[in-house]
């Protein structure tokens, strides 16, 4: 992110506006840009956004330090915010200076990150229970007990969305304006579409056949891909990989749950196939997002990827030993780590 005025600049005269230039298109969340003058009075006027550029008109009549606080949503719905200061004439105290300590620009707050991970975990488990169990009952065998699992999955799919909204707000700010801006953005559309999938899944439960549910699962995987990190230079590649990855994990974990509920020998082969696809796409994602492994140790994202590889490796080991219950428990953990990987900004 670049700004004009630059952070900590001391200017001779007040600029007419504050301009922020991001690396990708953004939409303002809530006010978008707030500026506080040396006396603490708001100094920002109308905020306009065009593509990756966010501007606020400025009425700076006082001499001294101005604090600029901004919050935006990226095209992939990830929230970010930041605070910096500049001065007109001379530096001075500012009642909002404490905002500067609030953390580095461009990352979610710890609470926001935690909530995001929980929301994603609930969503992925719901996805596995709904579509994975349906696929298993269509491909291998139906069973009475599966219905309850599927209903629980649908409930989790729906419950994940309010959690995701809370997570966005925790990373930005808890106020009505921000909530409305977040819901009115790309993120709001994705929440709406994912809730639509959950409701349709509930509707499809009343159908005489289960296969329409599979089409819905594919749609949901595509939506999950749409909310994922892009790969620079490869439009849609990151999104497509995530969609396949999510689908494969859902089939694997859903199949595991079905197996643990009602064992059937035919599960082994389908588990090997789905887990293979999940591991393959997962490794591809890890490679492109860590600069071919260079950022594995140096970034939070890379370290989370290492953890994910270890946990998945443990799950594969347990699968080889035939300890399906333990495999399921570790798989649920692996989904948690995957949720963390998805919520962290990639190294590239």
């Amino acid at each position, binding site marked *: 992110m670049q700004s004009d005025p630059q952070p900590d600049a001391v200017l001779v005269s007040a600029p007419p506006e504050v301009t922020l230039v991001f690396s990708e298109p953004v939409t303002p969340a809530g006010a978008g840009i707030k500026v506080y003058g040396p006396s603490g009075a708001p100094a920002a006027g109308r905020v306009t956004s065009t593509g990756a550029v966010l501007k606020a008109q400025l009425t700076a009549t006082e001499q001294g330090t101005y604090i600029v606080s901004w919050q935006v949503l990226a095209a992939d719905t990830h929230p970010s915010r930041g605070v910096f200061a500049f001065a007109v004439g001379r530096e001075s105290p500012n009642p909002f200076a404490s905002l500067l300590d609030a953390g580095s620009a461009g990352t979610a707050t710890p609470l926001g990150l935690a909530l995001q991970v929980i929301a994603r975990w609930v969503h992925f488990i719901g996805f596995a229970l709904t579509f994975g169990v349906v696929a298993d009952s269509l491909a291998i065998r139906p069973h009475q007990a599966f219905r309850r699992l599927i209903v629980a999955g649908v409930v989790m799919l729906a419950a994940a969305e309010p959690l995701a909204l809370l997570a966005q707000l925790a990373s930005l700010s808890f106020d009505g304006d921000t909530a*409305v801006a977040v*819901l*009115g953005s790309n993120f*709001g*559309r994705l929440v*709406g*579409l994912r*809730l*639509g999938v959950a*409701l*349709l899944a*509930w*509707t499809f*439960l*009343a*159908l*005489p056949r289960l296969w329409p549910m599979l089409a819905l699962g594919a749609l949901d995987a595509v939506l999950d891909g749409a909310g994922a990190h892009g790969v620079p230079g490869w439009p849609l590649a990151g999104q497509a990989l995530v969609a396949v990855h999510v689908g494969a994990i859902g089939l694997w974990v859903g199949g595991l749950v079905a197996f643990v509920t009602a064992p059937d020998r035919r599960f082994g082969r389908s588990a090997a196939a789905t887990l293979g696809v999940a591991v393959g796409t997962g490794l591809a994602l890890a490679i492109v997002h860590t600069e071919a492994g260079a950022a594995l140790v140096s970034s939070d994202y890379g370290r989370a990827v290492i953890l994910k590889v270890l946990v998945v490796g443990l799950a594969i080991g347990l699968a080889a030993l035939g300890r399906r219950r333990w495999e399921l428990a570790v798989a649920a953990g692996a989904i948690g780590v995957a949720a963390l990987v998805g919520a962290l900004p990639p190294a590239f």
Partner: protein
Amino acid sequence: MKRVHYAWVVAAVTFVALLGAAGFRATPSILIVPLQNEFGWNRAIISIAVSINLILFGLMGPFAAALMDRFGLRSVTVGALITISAGALATTVMNSPWQLYLLWGVVVGMGTGCMASVLAATVAGRWFVQRRGLVLGALTAAGATGQLIFLPGLGYLAQTAGWRYAAVVVAVAALAVVPIVAFFLRNRPSDLGIRAYGATEADSMPTNTGSPILNAFRGLRMGVRSRDFWLLGGSFFICGASTNGLIGTHLIPASMDHGMPEVAAASLLAVIGVFDVIGTLASGYLTDRFDSRWLLFFYYGLRGLSLLLLPFVFGSPQFALILFIVFYGLDWVATVPPTVQLARRVFGAQNFAIVYGWIFAAHQLGAATIAFAAGAVRTFFGDYQIAFMSSGLLCLLAAGLVLRIARERPGRVEIPERARVEAPAYS
């Protein structure tokens, strides 16, 4: 030459009566500005009258059905037409707000409430066994057609000659229908010694006696004890919310927010009206052939998806918006024939009209609720995306509700490919 079955005469007369009464549904939107100009009443005063009118229009249904059971189709229809004409004529000499509340709100509201969906349901239910859905579709479309016919003409008249002329024209149109109704409309097939159209047995349904008001509440009690009543009422609530309430009230301002000129935006609603007539007739035809639950499932499901995708449509090529409008128009009140049919199947020939009256009241309640809620969203937050998308989600919910109607226990529903041939109507 084979004689035309008298049921078709009854259907035609009812169609004309509904057409004549439709002018009154179109009038309030035309009167707002002239009344403001002449009396200096503010928008709030006029809105109160319109709200009273809408509430009574919705709530009158079950009582109208009970009145028709007790006193017959003909007397109730003639009474209603005379009432609304008198109410409209009297407005031309009013001079204070309470008179507007009484005349437009109470008198015309109650009168039009008797000429609403319940009349169509009762006529189709009593006179038709075969083709019942088609007749329901045609009678439901009459209201929409009437508004399309009256709205531009009345608007022009109110602008050039004054609102009193518009009021007189609708009153005269309603009065002109009275002799036709009085002469041709018959209560039941058995009054003429014939059977309902396509019926194999004679009509032997006993007439409901006792107080119509008590009967209306008896119908409500019967309804609320049934799970299917809540499923039908809930889905119809959502239907009203997503048509009249959301699109009817807010499509024009939302389109203008996105840079569409007002005339073009207003013509969107007219396009919806035209396709509404086609869609409702088609829906009636389909209701005679397929399971009503499947029809409703597709209507609500597709409507929900189109609402969810609407925020993606605004600001993109106009073609997509027009496609949305055409589709939405087809789906507008297409839900009425299958809903009436389901109500009849669940609650039986004798009682369904009153119960359907209550279900229709839920429709109007939904329209009023969302019209207000979406307006509030717009006022406070300056964006309709939340309102459109949450209405879309509600429609998907309705799609799930209707599939669960008339199902004995949870589990997979068994829906026959084609609608079961109904038992003879009044056996």
